[in-house]
């Protein structure tokens, strides 16, 4: 008899860590028989280099493992369950054909050390993806090597740094708006740069004068600017040309964080407006799945000035086919082993070919339409920090709600779960950008129907009413999830970061 207690809540609500399942000696492995002589490593290695004790892995059958992970999957919310309006993450539908494409044996089974002659299809696909990303962004070349957006930022800033060095300069300052993703300043630090924060202007966008003043204050020490367009407030930086001109005049280059590129497809090409370098999150705009936290992919497109510095290898097209070019004397080097997240390149390329130019342009239009539809319905209720039309996402403020009811953004987010929705991004942009208010950053994406948006707005309005009538209901949310609100303070104060045997 098992000593495990009988759970009245059952596997619909939780499943113990896999280490608490199974029995000693059990295994779900399917291994071939040994058909060569067995070898004892202790004859070849000193005793201290041979493993004395097996690692504490689970001991379960394939069936037990399958049930366990199927159960765990049910405790997750995903795009295929419903609206996932996580602002700045572009949680749009992940097409199923992408998954099928990436699993074609001719792609999935490819080893990175395969000779180029046997990789022609893969190289053709990556080359075509690079060309498409350049056409979309208005830039001239791109590296597909970075594995995520932040990795792309790192690579882009390395190129900017190398460009300055090539010109005998060593500037230290990077201008970054206060509404930027935290990855921007963190990537700057990894390049030895210091960050100069630019304030968000009264209309929610950057002011040219603020950029000019920052450049003047930094004197000859401006490496560049990192600008997110549209910004994380969902607003288009309409002074982009002037801002770029100011930064260029100060000797710097313009990096654009492409996290919000989904608003711009076929409508605005950053490379035509002074942007020298931009990363593209394939897991946002180009539908590769977010995977519960990756893998993503963060190709970086650049203009002519930065081409010599791109990471190696680049893919070149020749008369006899495609080849990898590593002979680039000014390259910053490699930022990752092999060729990047190829499985994501296949998915993104599949999406591009599914949509075509007209489909991509329509996607951006509908993404913007959807966000404004939410804005129009919820502005009268919640209020906006910057009351003007938005791009692909809308940022609501909790200022009025909290003043009237004491209910906070976090409570609204938790209560939304009871209505069957994933909450928006919360408390970003940071409160200091919104005059101390908590942000609810809503990005519906183009793949949502207006009916879904109506339901979402109805839920948000219902929560507003609840906050006024029964605030404790909202403050105690969620009520319908497998677990109630979790104690994050305890997790941080007494960290338990791995399972350990013993009493449970």
């Amino acid at each position, binding site marked *: 008899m098992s000593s495990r207690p009988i759970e009245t809540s059952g596997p619909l609500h939780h499943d113990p860590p896999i280490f608490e399942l199974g029995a000693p000696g059990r*295994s*779900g492995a399917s*291994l071939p028989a*040994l058909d060569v*002589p067995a070898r004892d490593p202790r004859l070849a*290695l000193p005793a201290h*280099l041979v493993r*004395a004790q097996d*690692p504490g*892995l689970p001991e379960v059958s394939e069936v037990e493992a*399958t049930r366990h992970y199927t159960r*765990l999957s049910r405790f997750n*919310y*995903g795009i295929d*369950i419903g609206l996932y309006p996580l602002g700045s993450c572009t949680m749009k539908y992940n097409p199923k*054909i992408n998954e099928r494409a990436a699993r*074609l044996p*001719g792609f*999935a*089974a490819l*080893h990175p*050390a*395969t000779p180029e002659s046997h990789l022609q299809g893969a190289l053709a696909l990556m080359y075509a993806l690079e060309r498409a990303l350049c056409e979309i962004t208005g830039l001239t070349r791109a590296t597909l090597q970075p*594995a995520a*957006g*932040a990795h792309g930022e790192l690579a882009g800033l390395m190129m900017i740094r190398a460009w300055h060095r090539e010109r005998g300069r060593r500037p230290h300052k990077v201008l970054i708006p206060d509404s930027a993703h*935290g*990855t921007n*300043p*963190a990537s700057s*630090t990894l390049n030895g740069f210091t960050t100069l924060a630019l304030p968000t202007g009264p209309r929610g966008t950057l002011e040219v004068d603020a950029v000019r003043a920052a450049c003047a204050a930094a004197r000859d020490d401006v490496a560049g600017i990192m600008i997110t367009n549209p910004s994380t407030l969902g607003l288009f930086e309409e002074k982009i040309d002037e801002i770029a001109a100011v930064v260029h005049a100060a000797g710097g280059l313009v990096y654009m964080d492409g996290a919000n590129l989904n608003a711009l497809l076929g409508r605005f090409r950053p490379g*035509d407006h002074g942007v020298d370098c931009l990363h593209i*999150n394939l*897991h946002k705009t180009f539908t590769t799945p*977010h995977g*519960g*936290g*990756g*893998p993503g*992919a963060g190709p970086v497109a650049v203009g002519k000035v930065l081409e010599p510095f791109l990471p190696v290898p680049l893919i070149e097209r020749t008369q006899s086919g495609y080849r990898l070019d590593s002979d680039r004397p000014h390259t*910053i*080097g490699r*930022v990752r*082993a092999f060729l990047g997240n190829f499985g994501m390149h296949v998915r993104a390329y599949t999406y591009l070919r599914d*949509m*075509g130019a*007209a489909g991509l*342009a329509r996607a951006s*239009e509908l993404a*913007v*339409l959807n966000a404004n*539809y939410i804005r129009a319905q919820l502005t009268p209720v919640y209020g906006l920090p910057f009351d003007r039309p938005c791009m692909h996402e809308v940022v609501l403020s909790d200022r009025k709600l909290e003043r009237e009811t004491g209910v906070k953004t976090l409570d609204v987010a938790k209560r939304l779960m009871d209505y069957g929705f994933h909450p928006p991004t919360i408390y970003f942009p940071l409160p200091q950008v919104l005059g101390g208010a908590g942000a609810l950053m809503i990005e519906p994406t*183009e793949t949502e*129907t*207006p009916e879904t948006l109506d339901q979402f707005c109805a839920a948000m309005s219902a929560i507003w009413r609840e906050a006024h009538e029964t605030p404790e209901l909202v403050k105690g949310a969620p009520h319908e999830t497998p*677990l109630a609100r*979790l104690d*994050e303070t305890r*997790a941080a104060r007494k960290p338990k*970061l791995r399972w350990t045997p013993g009493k449970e």
Partner: protein
Amino acid sequence: MSTQNRSYHRYLPHTDADVARMLEVIGVPSVQALFAELIPPPIQLKRPLDLPPALDEAALLEHLSELAQQNQTVGRTTFLGAGVHPHTIQSAVDMLLMRSELYTAYTPYQPEISQGTLQIVFEYQTMVAELFGLGLANASMYDGSTAAAEAVLMARRLSGRKRALASLGLHPEYRQVVSTYLHGLDAELESVPLTADGRTDLAALAERLGNDVGSVVVQVPNFFGVIEDVRAVAQAAHAAGALAIAVVAEPLALGLLAPPGALGADIAVGEGIGLAIPPSLGGPGLGLFAARDQPDFRKALPGRLVGETVDKQGRRGYVLTLATREQHIRRERATSNICTNTGLVATAFTIHMSMLGRRGFRELAHLCYAKGQYARDAVCALPGFEPRFSGPSFAEFAVRVPGGDADRVARRALERGVLAGVACGRWEAAYKDTLLINPSEAHRKADLDRLAVTLAEVAR
């Protein structure tokens, strides 16, 4: 709206009537008018993007299949490793990965509806810690090479010392990646040579060590397949006050080799792709990252962490924790810029490791060891072939080919349908004579015999 030959697309649900109704609610006459308020018309693009035409489901699959078929693979007679060491992944793993609750979720910021991802990562952290013999593991990095770079940066933070040393047994592309990261901080990665047996030269290491060295990086088994004595390297590093970083590009070896933590490594990283998903041209990968569990290491650790806690009713649950190290809180003072990691590959690894389990993991390691020794003996018995290094190997091994041109040997073997190994001259001219051969459980005895016969023929 944009013109296209059909007025609908399967991922875009809006009918003309939907759009009209929404515009009315918003209070603008048209989508064009809405955009005119957002992006000044003079800077809007005035032409359609010049992209290849859209394809329907059938045509798209046909096109992709054609591209896939232009890649040629040779099945079981592939002996490529060199940082990506493929193993058979049980069908159940990919079937479970296709659960869209797992792959269409994002970073579990909202724990009440992300317990699946969070518990899987907690289990993953436990497994990685167990494999490496260290107490602390993060929720994953991009791949082994970037994990190695992050380890070197973490050691800089902990030690306050700027110099970093790496054995020439570290994967050449890993060395390039670490160097690229260090260039950003005006530092270099300095090399430590190998001895004739293929292990890190401890005397040369001692000469280079000093009180300004923050870390020493050693790979095990190293790039040439040689099993390094991590304990000796760690002792040397510690004697000089530096941290020892172990890189394990083939973590299956840890089913048979002592874990780096037990040998004194302070940080251990690795590449988990081979125990998670098919090679996929080397990406996405899975950057394994583990470290000693002590307060200063916890503070300096890059990447996400999942911790156990309880809900309001006292029930066990999981959350992202210790996030004050991270970019979204700490911004320019974060320990790393990493945000999106490789959650789904970590999930695959966790499921596959669960199914292998204690016994399976050990048995698989011993299978690969036996195949590797058999193949090494067979190839090194061929006229003109000899071990490139005399030190002991796990599964992958390096041979010196007769005539000194490993690339030529590999190309001729491929003409006979055998991807015999990786010719190391592609990274360094000094290794032009070296072929790196990676047997695994996927190879039957007959495949290993065919490898030897083919190499004998083409080297003639």
